């Protein structure tokens, strides 16, 4: 059986989405993409600071990847919509990760503004992947608003604290008829594997790979973990039990 993830009418080959922030050198990015197999890659849009010369990130992303600009920096729906329109008009394709944040300490998303932005952009033909605090009612509204997937956070952005919202994500996976992509907070491959075993359609990882001692090796580790977790989900894990259940037969012992 072919296991295909479809988003916005496109077949996505890898269930590991990669963020490109925080890499010590842009040159690492193509190497990491090769090592982890990611096809969907996020970028951000910023004002140019003439004092700080930075190279164009897009030229480091292989052409076959799907670019997913995020709307980071937006504090409300209108700003997110504006960023998305500029990114699309600048040739970034029609995928967009909605990120509306008005909280500086935990960088938690504003679910209400996120729904509003999703509605506007989906109506304009964008493939909208909203980043959100895992909440069932918001997720249902995102479905109605035309989102292509729903991206709940595992823990705060860049915190590497793993799946602290596990129970709420489980509910979204169970109830929402769209791909659930765990975005933010995943710090280790084992946590990515766990999200996939739970039935997440994909995970988006940035900090955990970009700030690892060896980002290329960590990218590969995440790629393998996501694949293993997905396989385990499809294989159907066995039941858990309170007490021991012998794995060897309990009869016919060799005794005097």
């Amino acid at each position, binding site marked *: 059986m072919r296991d295909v993830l479809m988003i916005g009418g496109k077949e996505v080959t890898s269930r590991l989405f990669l*963020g*490109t*922030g*925080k*890499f010590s050198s*842009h040159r690492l*990015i193509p190497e990491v993409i090769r090592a982890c197999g990611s096809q969907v890659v*996020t*970028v*951000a*849009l*910023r*004002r*140019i600071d*003439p004092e700080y010369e*930075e*190279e*164009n*990130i*897009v*030229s480091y992303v292989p052409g076959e990847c799907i670019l997913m*600009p*995020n709307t*980071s920096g937006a504090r409300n729906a209108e700003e997110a919509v*504006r960023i998305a*329109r*500029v*990114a699309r*008009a*600048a040739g*970034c394709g029609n995928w967009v990760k909605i990120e509306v944040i008005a909280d500086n300490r935990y960088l938690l998303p504003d679910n209400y503004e996120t729904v509003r932005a999703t509605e506007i952009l989906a109506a304009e033909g964008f493939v909208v992947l909203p980043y959100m605090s895992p909440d069932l009612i918001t997720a249902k509204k995102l479905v109605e608003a035309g989102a292509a997937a729903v991206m709940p956070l595992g823990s705060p*952005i*860049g915190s590497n604290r793993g799946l602290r919202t596990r129970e709420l994500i489980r509910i979204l996976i169970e109830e929402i008829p769209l791909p659930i992509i765990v975005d*933010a907070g995943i710090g280790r491959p084992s946590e990515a594997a766990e999200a996939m075993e739970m039935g997440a359609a994909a995970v*988006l990882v*940035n*900090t955990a790979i970009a700030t690892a001692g060896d980002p290329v090796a960590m990218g590969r580790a995440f790629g393998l973990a996501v694949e293993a977790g997905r396989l385990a989900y499809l294989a159907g894990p066995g039941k858990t039990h309170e007490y021991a259940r012998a794995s060897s037969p309990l009869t016919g012992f060799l005794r005097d």
Partner: protein
Amino acid sequence: MRITLNGREEILKDGTTLTELVSLKQLNIGEVIVVYNHQLAKKESWPNIVLKENDGLEFLRFVGGG
């Protein structure tokens, strides 16, 4: 004339075109995204855009992000 570039007021000589402003700032034309009075300005149009008093410009680029 006065314009606003990336939130800062700047004084430019009258008749400056958008292309001239981009090269004045020593920016790589290939990667600059220009939002001119809230509209994306395509590169082909830059030489024909003569800046005027109170214009608002944003010079943007794609950067790493998650």
